[in-house]
């Protein structure tokens, strides 16, 4: 988190506090002055190998290794509320070095159905705990509904995406899932849907506030703090605004195909290819893990069925000791089926959702690259237009139309300004993207490592429980005589 506070990559971790480059508390959130790559863009030529070193994706030694919380899954806590704390544990990140720290924890909890019928909605409690001076108090909560989150994202996207910031995408809408909840089905799948959504909303908020720029945004602050929020109606899936968005998306896609950019910067080409590959692989991995979740759930169900069958067999058995052993086997298998169910949840909430989140995040990253292309296109268009105007002006020199000539000269001046602005915009977005990508990659590596470790620990827990259960059964089996 917050990698912007180190010097060159070769500095050892311990030097942090002594590092004069490290920004202080508030300036942490400033954009340009502490620009990590300021040096890079001004002093080093675009394709020099030195630049690569500074922009490398290796983990910044400014970050000390973070030890994940040592809490592990225990059987009695293996139920959905537990997983909520498990995942929140992961998201609570604390930097240990002295000085600045991102100390903020958001939790989304207490889903509550408000209203009836098709107008009903789920209200979630959003609680922020923080020690940062940005906020008035260090703990506060508000009530928000799903469309509020979408509205927040929509605003952030419109403000920041086109200038190169990777805005975390909001969780996906689900008409089917939500309809079930509205209609009032109090069943397993509705509960799972609500829990899945709650967890996703929480991750969304945490990712958003971990972004140093977005955290400062007034919309974000208002979202977290203010008790009343104007309803975001344009986020409805089947609204006119929604349809408009779809049309725009399609138009964008077509445009993207027709832009042929002269990429002079190998870094961007390389990164784009990198994200393409990553996208493909992550989607594949996500699909495999989803299949794993499905099969694990199946195993749980099959084990439960077997347990029942074994119990019946035990009842039918007329040899006393064997009958008892079979009943014990049935009990063991019943416990094991619960174990598999819990593991399936861990498979899903830790591994599968992580991958799903990153598939969506990478789409946002690709979007940001597309915006850069558009910016370039705009700049080129202005240049072309300027050239045309200049040619027209040259022609006008030979005619005797002083008014038209003056008009042409004015237009040229305006266009020259536009071209300069276009170039500045392009350079700015390129710079921003470099920073963002570097931050994103570091975040991604850390994210994965932390969650994978948590996931592996869940697998360890399951196996250790299995050992316990079978160990308890063994004497029962041996007691058959």
């Amino acid at each position, binding site marked *: 988190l917050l990698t912007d506070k180190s010097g060159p990559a070769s500095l050892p971790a311990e030097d942090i506090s002594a590092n004069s480059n490290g920004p202080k508390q508030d300036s942490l959130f400033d954009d340009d002055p502490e620009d990590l790559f300021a040096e890079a863009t001004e002093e080093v030529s675009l394709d020099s190998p030195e630049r690569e070193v500074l922009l*490398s*994706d*290796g*983990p910044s030694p400014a970050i000390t*290794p973070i*030890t994940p919380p040592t809490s592990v899954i225990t059987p009695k806590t293996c139920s959905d509320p537990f997983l909520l704390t498990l995942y929140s544990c992961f998201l609570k990140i604390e930097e240990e070095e002295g000085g600045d720290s991102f100390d903020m924890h958001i939790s989304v909890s207490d889903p509550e159905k408000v209203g009836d019928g098709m107008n009903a909605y789920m209200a979630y409690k959003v609680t922020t705990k923080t020690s940062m001076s940005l906020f008035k108090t260090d703990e506060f909560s508000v009530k928000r509904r799903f469309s509020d989150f979408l509205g927040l994202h929509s605003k952030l996207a419109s403000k920041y995406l086109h200038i190169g910031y990777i805005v975390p995408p909001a969780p996906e809408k689900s008409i089917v899932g939500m309809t079930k909840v509205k209609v009032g089905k109090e069943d397993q799948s509705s509960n799972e849907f609500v829990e899945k959504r709650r967890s996703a909303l929480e991750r969304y908020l945490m990712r958003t506030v971990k972004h140093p720029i977005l955290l400062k945004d007034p919309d974000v602050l208002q979202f977290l703090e203010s008790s009343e929020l104007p309803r975001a109606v344009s986020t409805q899936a089947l609204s006119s605004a929604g349809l408009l968005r779809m049309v725009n998306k399609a138009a964008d896609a077509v445009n993207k195909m027709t832009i042929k950019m002269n990429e002079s910067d190998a870094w961007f080409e390389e990164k784009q290819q*990198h994200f393409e*590959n*990553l996208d493909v*692989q*992550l989607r*594949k*991995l996500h699909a*495999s*893990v989803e*299949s*794993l979740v499905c*099969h*694990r759930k*199946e*195993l749980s169900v*099959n*084990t439960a*069925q*077997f347990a029942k*069958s*074994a119990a*019946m*067999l035990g009842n*039918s*058995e*007329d*040899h006393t*000791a*064997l009958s008892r*052993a*079979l009943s014990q*086997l049935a009990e063991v298998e019943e416990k094991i089926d619960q174990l598999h169910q819990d593991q399936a949840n861990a498979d899903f909430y830790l591994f599968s959702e992580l991958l799903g989140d990153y598939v969506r995040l990478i789409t946002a990253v690709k979007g940001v690259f597309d915006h850069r292309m558009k910016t370039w296109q705009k700049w080129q268009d202005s240049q072309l237009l300027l050239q045309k105007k200049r040619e027209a002006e040259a022609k006008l020199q030979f005619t005797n139309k002083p008014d038209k000539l003056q008009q042409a000269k004015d237009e040229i001046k305006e266009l020259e300004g536009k071209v300069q602005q276009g170039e500045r915009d392009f350079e700015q977005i390129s710079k921003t993207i470099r920073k963002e990508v570097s931050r994103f*990659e570091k975040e991604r*590596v850390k994210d*994965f*490592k932390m969650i*994978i*470790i948590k996931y*592996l*620990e869940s*697998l*360890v827990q399951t*196996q*250790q429980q*299995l*050992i316990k259960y*079978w*160990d308890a*059964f*063994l004497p029962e*089996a*041996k007691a*058959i*005589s």
Partner: protein
Amino acid sequence: MFHEVGGGGGGGGGGGGGGGVTDLTVRQGANQSAEEGASWLYTFIIGVVGLFVDLPPTMTSSIDESSKEKMRSVSVDLNHDASLLIDIPDALCERDKVKFTVHTKTTLSSFQKPEFSVPRQHEDFIWLHDTLVETEDYAGLIIPPAPPKPDFESPREKMHKLGEGEATMTKDEYTKMKQELEAEYLAVFKKTVQVHEVFLQRLSSHPTLSKDRNFQIFLEYDQDLSVRRKNAKEMFGGFFKNMVKSADEVLISGIKEVDDFFEQEKTFLLDYYSKIKDSTAKAEKMTRAHKNIADDYIHVSATLNSLSADDSTANKKHLEKLADLFEKLRKVEGRVASDQELKLTELLRYYMRDIQAAKDLLYRRARALADYENSNKALDKARLKSKDIPQAEEHQQHCLQKFDKLSESGKKELTSFKGRRVVAFRKNLIEMAELEIKHAKNNVTLLQGCIDQLKNN
């Protein structure tokens, strides 16, 4: 001791097909370190020669005695009597047909040679079983259940699907999936060998059945047995007999049982059969789910490897470790599945069939009882008419004798059957629990190792 089938397309009759050479050279050795205990680990080295078009390939496998000892999990106390030792050391799988090599070692003078081997097909085993069932003298015995037909349908179908989906996976993934399927194929193959072997060993260890003439012919006759096997007419007769038997099932519920022991056994066996049949099916579903999970791990591992290959950061090593971990985990998961299948599913399946055989004994006895009661009625009628009394009396005596003999033998058989069943269940449940613990511990070590590596990077 191992056996190789090498060479090109020849291999066996079915090898031709659509231009695909399906030749599998299977060498296998069994690892038996002391701490393995009842589990068996096989290392297979499979080299595929030529295009892999269709299955089954030509496969032979030789299994040495001590590893077979471990495989023989469902029945105990077989094949210890040195006077007649039978085993199936070799089997050849061609297309759909399995050829078993039945090897006998004996000190009995009733056989021509002290040691000999003959090739036999599955149908030969069925013939032997059916002749034993139809032998009047054995009506009071539990005839060991016939081994089920070798069924390679499941892995074959999966292999077909894999072939179709080849384009969607990496080379590494495809290779691993294929290995898994080949292992599954081999497992089915081994199971069928075991089940046929156990059938013969049950016969050889039975005091009465081991002396059966047809059994001897089965073991000894060095020509093809198919001439002696059922011809169409006989088969029809057998079919008819099965139909009559189900009518008997209805009959049994109406017969008044005179003996408490048999009354109890009947109630117990009827109920137990349906329960164990259900348990077998459910256990099978559990095993299949484990196998699916193992397959998922293959895909996860392969994709992690691809991610690692594309990655140029320090993350690369993490991904490699993780890919490696999942590859190891899937092997363990695969073993969990196969051990569970062997110790639980196969156990249940075997005793389901054995209980059917015990039920058959009860049916035969019930028929004998019905016959006896009918003969009583006939005797009464004869006495009334004062006609054919001696015949009727003789018939009645004959029925009574038959019934008594059946009851006496039946009681012995059913009692020893229960003992056998309890012992087998005990052994297998213990072994299954031990194996589950072993695999879980293995998993913990693998996982913990990876976690530590990731944390300490």
